[in-house]
Structure formats: C-alpha cells, structure tokens
C-alpha cells in the first residue's frame, strides 16, 4: 500500500474539514474564512458548470456542424449558436443591445413553455384532482382565501374623506396570517432538519473518512 495514498486522502479530508469549519464559523459571525469557503464553493460550482456546458453542449453542437457543415440538419444549429454569441455581447455595454434579440427569444420561449406547462401540468390537474373536493377542498379554499386576504392592503375613502379599511377583513387576515406562519414554520423546520442531516452527514463523513485513513496508516 502506498503511504502517499492515505496521506493524500488525509490531506483532502483535512482540506475538506477546514472548508467545512470555515463555513461553520459563520455561527460566530460573518468572517473572511466563511467568505473564502463560500467564494471557493461558488467559484468551483461555476467553473464546473462552465466545463459541463462546454463539454456537454458546445462541443457536441460544434463537432456535429463541423463534421458535415452542408447538411441541412446541422445548419439549423447555427441559429441557436448565433443567438448564443449575440447573447454574449450583452456583457459589452455598447453592444448589449445586440443580445436583446437572443434574450427576447429565450424569455419569450421560456415564458410560453412555462405558461403552457403551468396550465396543463398544474392548474388543470389540481383543479380536477380527486382529493381537492369535499371538506378538505373547502378548507383548503378558505385557507387560501384567508391567506390572500392577508395581502389585501386596499382601502376606500369615506364620506368624511377618511381612509377606511374594512374591519371584517381583520379576522380573515388573522387566519391567513396563521396559515402563512404554519407554512413558513414547516418550511423552516424542513430546512432545519435538512441542515441537521447535512451536518450529521458531514460529521459522519469525516468520522468515517478519518477512521479509514487512520486505519490505513496504522496498518
């Protein structure tokens, strides 16, 4: 067994542990170590994404076009490539307007597809869902209305030119407020549980990794 291998794994584990502790240092306050860890995470993620895009998208497209440029099916790919190049010009202030067409095509198409999917995949199925009827459905509708009423801030002018807000909305708003609180509490609890899982997983990872390294070194 090569000694360098467990040392290398140990170094990687130590580096990983250090970065984990850097992030964990945020429990004290915002500090440079935390920022270094966050920046490093963001940078590595972006770099990794760029590599993936180049490797998974651009190279396959370009290789396909270059392999047979005169093929009609390949020429079509010039359209998205051109739009992508134009989109890169958005980084240049003087030429950013050139990429507006790419943005328009991207946003327009995405909005259209998203709208279609929302209607077909969410609105219609949820409306005609079997479980949405009955008492649960009514309760769900009332809670939804009360939640929406909480965000109703409109008012009207009385005859004496005073700003009047309907008093009957207050209990409805209160119900809506409770619904929102419970929903956010559930989300928060889920995030807290996820965080504890992640922390436990990380600690378990390091415990197991260090055990393996130490066992390797000892053996």
């Amino acid at each position, binding site marked *: 067994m090569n000694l360098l291998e467990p040392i290398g794994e140990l170094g990687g584990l130590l580096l990983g542990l250090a970065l984990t502790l850097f992030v*964990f240092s945020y*429990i*004290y*306050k915002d500090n440079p170590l935390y920022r270094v860890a966050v920046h490093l*995470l963001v940078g590595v*993620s972006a770099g*990794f*994404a*760029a590599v*993936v*895009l180049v490797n*998974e*998208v651009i190279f*396959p*497209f370009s*290789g*396909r076009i270059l392999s047979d440029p005169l093929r009609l099916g390949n020429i079509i*790919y010039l359209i998205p490539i051109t739009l992508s190049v134009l989109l890169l010009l958005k980084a240049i202030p003087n030429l950013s307007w050139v990429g507006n067409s790419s943005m328009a095509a991207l946003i327009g*198409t*995405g909005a259209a*597809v*998203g709208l279609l*999917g*929302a209607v*077909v*995949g*969410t609105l219609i*199925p*949820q409306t005609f*869902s*079997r*479980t*949405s009827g009955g008492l649960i459905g009514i309760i769900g509708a009332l809670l939804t209305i009360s939640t929406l009423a909480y965000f109703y*801030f*409109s*008012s*009207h*002018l009385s005859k004496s030119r005073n*700003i009047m807000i309907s008093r009957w909305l207050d209990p409805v708003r209160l119900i809506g407020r409770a619904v929102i609180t419970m*929903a956010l509490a*559930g*989300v928060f609890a*889920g*995030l*807290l*549980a*996820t965080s*504890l*899982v*992640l*922390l*436990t*997983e*990380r*600690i*378990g*990872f390091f*415990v*197991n990794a260090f055990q393996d390294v130490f066992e390797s070194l000892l053996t």
Partner: protein
Amino acid sequence: MSMIFCPQCGTENVDTNRECRACAFDFMTGSNLVCPICQFENNALIDQCKQCGTDLTAVSAVSDPDGKDSATDLARIAGPLPAPPTRRFTPEGITESSGETDEPGDFDDWLDEVISGKSDDEFRGDSALFGDEGPVWAVGSGLALSDTMELEEESLPDWLKNLKETDDVKEEEPATPTKRKLASWLDESKLTQLEKKRDLEKEIAGGEPSDQKNDSHKKIDQISGDEKQVKDTLQAATTAPFSEQDQEADIDSQQSDEWLVELAAMGSSADSGDAEDGEDTRFVWDESALTSDVSEEAPGWLRELTESEDWPDTISESVIEEWTRKIDDDLIEVKDPKAFVTRPLGPTRELDGVPERLVSRALPEWLGDKSEEPAAPVPAEKITVEEAELADIEEEEELTDLAELADIEDREAFLDLADLADIEDEEAFLDLAEMSDVEDKDEVLDLPEQQDDEELTIEDTQEIAISGLPELRPEVEYQEIEEVKAVYVKDSAEIEMPSAEPELAEALVEQPVIPDDWLDDLAEAEDIIEYTALESFSSIDELLVEDRVAEDRDLSDQGADAQEIGERPTIEADSEVPTWLARLTNKLLDTFDNEFVNEWFSREKVEDKQAVESIQDEMEPTKSEAEQELDIDPFYGEIIPDWLRQTEAEAENGQSGDTLSETPADVSFEEQEIIQKDKDKYSALIAAGAVASSDEWLTLLEKKEDGEGPKADAEKAEVILEESPTQPEVPVETSPEAFEEELVELQYEMAEEEIEEELPGPIGIASTDEYLIPEKEAADSVDIFVMTREQRQQVALLKRLTSAEPRVVRPVRGQISATIAPNMRIIIGLLLLLLILAGWLIPTSLDPLEGFIQPSLVGSEREVYEAVQSAAGKPVLVAFEYTPAMAGELDSVAATLLQQMAENGSPVVAVTQVAAGTAMAHKMLEAVEDLESYDLGFLPGEAIGLRRLALCLTGEASCETIFGQPLDLEAVEALNNFALILILTSDRDAIVNWIEQVGPSVDQELIGGIIQPLQPIVAPYVNSDQLVGTIPGAQSALAYQQLLLEVDSINGIKPSALALAYWFTAAVLIVGSIYYAARGNSPRSEGKEAAK
C-alpha cells in the same frame, strides 16, 4: 425749422440756406421779401419772417412785380381743372358725387357769391336786404361794419386792435394771388407748365434761332390756348344758365371742367334768381329745388327761409314742433319738445330781430333733410388708426386736398374723414358729422375713434349729435340748454371714452356747439367786401385769392361785431368764442407732427410736396398774443368763426391773425414746456388710436418735428395708455385754470418718471449694469398638484406602516448583549457538534435512543416502493437535479432507490439539468453496485429542454441525439422503453418542471426523492397522483432502508447521531421559548413597548 424747395432743382433745403445744397442756386437772388413788421430781409421762398414770424405770403404777393401775370399764368395752367367731389344739399340729405352734379350748394357760400359774378354794387344792393352793411346779425342789430370798426379800442382785444390798424392797408391794395395761395389741384404739372412757358418766353427773348422760336411760340400758344379755354369756359358758365342738359354735355366733353361748370351754373342760377325776385342768391340753394323739393318736403321754417323775403320775427311753435317731431321719430327720443322750441327773444335780446333771422337762417340745412330722411344706419365699425390708414383714399385724396385748400369749411373734408374712418356709409357718417353741426366737426369723427377698440355705433353718434341740437339755437334759453346737456351727458356717458382724452367729452358736454351755418349767414350779410365781378378776374387764381381776402375781411368784421354785441346771450357769446374748441384744437394740432404728415402724404402718393409744405407753412400753428388771451388756436380759422380770421389789412401786410408762426414772447417757457409735453402725450395717443386721428386734414397743418414719428408716438401711447386707467366720463369743469393744473400734474408725473430712470453716470466710469444682479423673474405658476385617490390610499397605508415602526429601539430588558450572542451561538453549535459526534461514536449496541428514533413509513413512501418494484426489469429514468450542497441528504435517498433498482434489475438512464448534477449522477451511479446505467449527461434549457425530452420520450421526436450528443443504441432503447421516472432534486422548480412539462406527456409514473423542506410543496402533486410518491429527506430514506430494504444505513447516516441532533435542536428551541416566556417579553413585545 421749415423747409424750402429749390425752384431750379426742387431739392429740399433748410430755410436758413442761402443757396441750394444740390445745385447751388442762390436763394437770395431775385426779389427778397422784406418783413413789413421788422423790416427783416427774408428769403423769397419762405413764407414767414425769420425774425418775427410774420406771414410773408401777402408780402410776397405784393412784392412780386409779376404777380398779376403770375396769377394769369396760374389761371392759364389751371387748364382743365379736376372736378372736385361735390355734395348735393337736397331735402333727402347730403349726397356726394364726383363732379357729376351741377346742383348749387356744392360749394361754400363765399365761393357761390364769387361765382355769382356780382359786382360790388350788386352786393351792396343785396346787402340792403339785411338793412345795412355788415353781417346778418349786425345788420339786424342796425350796426354797420363801419360802426363796428369804430368801436372803441378799449373794448377790443389787442389782436383785434392790430387787425383794425391794418385794415386800411388792405383796402388800399388788394391782395394778389401767389403761388402758395394756389390750391393743391394746381399741382406740379401746372406749375411746371407755367415755368415751361416762362422758359420759352425767355428763350424767345434771348434770341434763339428762328426754328426754336417758332416751336417756343407754338408751345406758348398751346398753353395760352389752354388758358383761354379755361377762361372761356368760365365766362360761358357764368353767362349762360346751367341746365342739366348742358351739364351732361359738359361732362361728356370736358369732365375736367365740371366743377368750374358747376360754379358757373350756380352763378347763373343766382343771377337769374336775383333778377327775378331779388332774393339773396348767394345761398347755394337752388331756387327751383327749394320751390319744388324743399318747399314740399322741408319744414316750414325752411320754406320761409327760401321763399319769403321778409324773415319772420318768430317761428311758431308748431313749426318747431313739426321738425322736432320728425327728428324725434328718426333720430332721437325727445323727452321734452319744448327743449327744442325757440322762443322769440325779447326786445333786449332780440337785437332788432337779427338773431331771429340769424337763427332762422342758421338752421342747419341738413336739418330739413334729416327730418325727412334720416341717415341710414351704418353698422358699427371699430375705427382705429390702422383702419383709417388703410382706407382707400387714393381716388379722393387730390379732391380732398382741393377742398381743403379751397375752403376748409367745405364739408368735403368730413367726407374724406369719413372715408378715413372706414365707414361704409360715408354719407350717413357725413350726415352725422353735420348733424352735430359743430364747428369742429372732427370731434364727431373723433368720438368713434377715441373709443379705439370700443364699438361706437352710428346710433350713438347720432345721439351725440342730436344732443347738441338745442345749442344750435341761440335763442334757446339757458335752462333748456342745460336740460339738453343733461341728455347729452347721459348719452355720452354710455360711450366709453379713453380717460386720456376726457377733454373731448367735456368740451362737448360743457361747451355749446355752434352751427357753422351762421358763418355763412355772416358772410352773406356783410357787404363791405369789395367783390369784383367774375369777368374782372384775370384768372381763377385771382378769383380765389380775392375770395380769401374776403374771408379775412369777414373774420375781422364779425370779430368786431361780436365784441360790439356784448349783451348777446351767453350761449351765443360762448358760441362766438369757442374757447373749448380752441383748447381742444390746440391739443389736437399739437399732436400731429410734420413727419407723420409727410409719411402720410408719401403713403398717399402726394406728388407735389412743395404744395404740401406750403400748405403746412400756411397753416402753421402759432399763437398770437391776442389769441392767447382768448385761448384760440389760430390754425383753425376754418372751423372757428370767420371774424377771428385775419383782416384784409393783415392779409395784405402778411400779418394775418391766422398765420402767426412763432410763439409770442409773453408765453413763458414753463407754459411752452407744458404744452410740449401735453403735445407728446396726445401725439402718442393719436398714434395709438386712442384719440381720433382720422381728420387727416389736420395733419396737413402740423408743424414738422424731427425725430418724431408715428412709431415713436405709438410707443409713447402704450406707456401713456398703461398709465391712464379708464375713468368714468364725468363732466369736469374745463376752465383754463383746471386745464393748466392738469398739465402741471402731467408735467410732474413725467418728471418723476424721468427721475426713476437709471442715471447714465459720469463719463469714463464703467456702467453699473454689468455688476448689478439682474432681477430674477418670478417663476411660472406651478401646476397645482392633485393627489389622486390611489395616492391618498398609499399615503394612508404608508402612515400606518410607519406608525407601527418603533420610534426608538431600546435594548430589550434581559436581552443577551452583542458579545454574549455570538458566544451563545458558538456554544450551541459546539454542543450540537459534540452530540452528533457522540451519536457516531456511541456503539450501536449502546445506543440509548434505539427504537426511540426509529422512523415510520408514510403512504407516499410505500407508493414509491411499489412503483420501483413495479418497474423492476424496466429502464428507469433518473434525474439528478441537485448540487453537492444537498448531496448529504439526497445522496442517501438516491442511494436507497438506486440500490433497490439495482436489485430489481432495472437499468438507470441518468439525466440532469444542473451542471453539478452530472457529478452527482456519476458519483451515485458508481456508488451502487450492480447497477446498469446510462448517463445522458447535461440537459440544457430547463423547461424547454424537458419539453424537448418529453417529445423524445413519447416518440414524437427522434431520441437518437439529445442536443447534439449522439446516444448509443442501448440508451435509445432504454428511453423508448422506460417505465419509471425518478426525480432527485432539492429545487422546487426542478420537480415542478418535470411534473408540468414531462408528466402530462408521458404515461409513466413519476416518483420523487426530495429534501425535507420540499415536502409541503410537492404534497399537492402527490395528492393529485401527479407524483406517485416521494421520499422526503434522509430520515425518510433511513426508514425506507430499515423497514423496506432491511438495511441499517446507506451512505453513512447513523440514526443515533441524527436523533441526537434533532433532540438537541428541539431542546434549544424549547428552552429559548421558555426563557423568553418566563421573562414576559419577547423581542417583538419589547419592540412594541419601545414603540409606545
């Protein structure tokens, strides 16, 4: 300073020049004029003495050795004279025609008398009609002109004394016509013709060649022939009765001689009338017309006037009521007819009946006409100076000038003024002017123009005119006059007059109006004028000059008579001496400058500027000492009584009362300055149209001043008008003292304005303007901000929100300080780490929490299990939609499911839309043993990419390549036969996109491996069976493993460590809540306290 024109080249020169500046013609050569007053030797071309201002016109005529010849020549070159516009005095009113009528009465009475061709004896004989020598009223009073001349000098003003002194001189040597005496119709062409004749005569005398002499003789003969033709025409006209046929014939043959023909016709008519019944034929009334038309249509008094030789002493009230009733019907609503009824004067006031005759004769001619047919209503017009200037007077300008030069009293001037005023119905306007029958008829015309932009209808003017009717009657009692004045004041108050010129209205209100017909009567009554028969005149010019002299004689006579009759009624005395008119005309005259006049003339294309200048000089406004006493403007000899005009002697000596050219020495400098400023004021007003300026003939009389002009006047007018607010037209006493006080006030105001202006500062010192901070102009009015309803609501909401905020954030009582809080967080964190480590380090056998943390399975997790089990042996599409950040939780879920798939023999086709997901997929696919998998890699485009993938999964599109990357056959076969879709994601959008874009397109089931926070979000989709089931988080995955897969752990999550973390976290939350609950205040409640 006046201008003279070089007789050689016509260049305009200053009168002080001794030679022409253009041709060096010596002005001093020839016959220089010696002033008869100061013996100063003047230039022959000037009209007034440079030293004393004496009018040298008569002197020049006397001193001209060839005066008679000149007059003859002028008469010759008069040639075919243009026919002036004449007006016909008919019972229907005054009509105008341009030389097409031969009706008598078209000319002034004095001219009628001249044309009648009576000799002096005849006139004397006619004068017997009135009883004795002298004017009508003088005759009636038994006073002869000789008697009036013998009035004691103490009772006469100084100027009348001077007139009297020079009277003898005039009788000795009649005046000779001169060039400047010519009317304007003797235009430049005539003068040029005369000069041409002289030149030819000189050429002949100079011994020119015979051919040239012959030509010269021919030209002279031609000119002489023209002259002879004129003379013959005049003689024929004076000897033969003038009939309509003759008139028509003459019009056809010689239209240019029409007015001469008319003169002759009237003269003959007068002769015939005189021969038949011995009536006074000097009246312009045609006897036939009077007996036919007038006798039928005119009122009784008019018939008496025309038919009866014996004038009635009184006029019956019925007659007066008759014509007043007619007037009432047509013109004015007479409240009290007695106001117009004349009463016979008593013995003391009757003056031997003369006033009665005078009154009866003085009844205005138009009155009879107006009573029959009133003037047609003329639409109201806005009369402004600009309109007057734009009026088309080109055709009548020469005729107007003729009329003005021949006799300014001629009503033609008013016709022109009506034209200038742009009144459509000129006749109606003229009638209105005559209805007022004031001496200064321009006042009537001024009234509408004074209103400037205000509309003054003809009806209003009629009211003004009619209101003065009783004042035309000298025998009307003063009380009655006052009543009528009140009516006039009422009427005039309805007319808005500019306050800047209240004198006009005041004058009309306060002062009686004098009919001008009495002037005709005066001229008719006098018989001291030595008229010469028409045949005795060598030319028409001589005739005109003689007539002018006669007018001067009338003026002096009547002035003397006026002084003699000191006991006349006050109204008559006021009428005889219209001081208000003098004052008014003074101001009006002063407003005109010669520059404006010249401009007007140039605009009207007046060719003969010399004639214009001579006219101006002739009518130069001056004030003599005597006139100043009476406050009479001498320039309006035409509109003031004739007796105020120059006498014969003065005319001969060139010292006529109406041509005094210089300001008397007794006029103080202050007075002159006041007058000058007043002049500027009214000049500006006239230029702005605030004051009437349509009486263009007045402009001919104006003295030229350099640096003044309509434009400057207009600028002044703007200032003055702004400073002169409109004042009510209240009759104000117009005494001379009040007037002077007003002028003094005006002077002070102007002086104050001058003081307020910035001083120029000493020379050589920089102006302070550059260092002065300019006044800031006031900003424009800010738009009123209007708050909309929405804005009000937003404001109210903002107030509520801001009011809910604490004013002062005070530290919460018992709150952990800033230094303790981080430590507490660190302590809690470290405790959490220790507990997790403890969970990992504690052996499972010694796990105190064993069984306590055992997870339970829920319905959705069992659905996932069944779905994976149902897809055993079939390809499963697994989407790795999470990043390494969530790998700690989702890796356990993914490993659990992939392990199950591997056990079921289901191949896995991995795909991801997250770049980092490719690494997660690669890691997990390698971590599960015996798992057949195909990694499709990265799928870009999010929803669009999923849509494209759905088409591939459904077979609608080819799945050989996914976004350019070729797939192997196994992958393609797996995509075509897949049985389950597993979505591993920590992102809501990712699982929703899969549900929305792919779920509806495929028939296969979708299951999800999500993090725990996504459980509430995907629950609806689970309830709607869009998702078969989910494994939410690592804890569910752990339970899934233990209960379904019967394995302790996958991927290193130890349940005891996780359980310790959960419990510790729960304990911290509970302790914290208890802590704050025990303190009785939470941070929220403390915030509210701070807000209170």
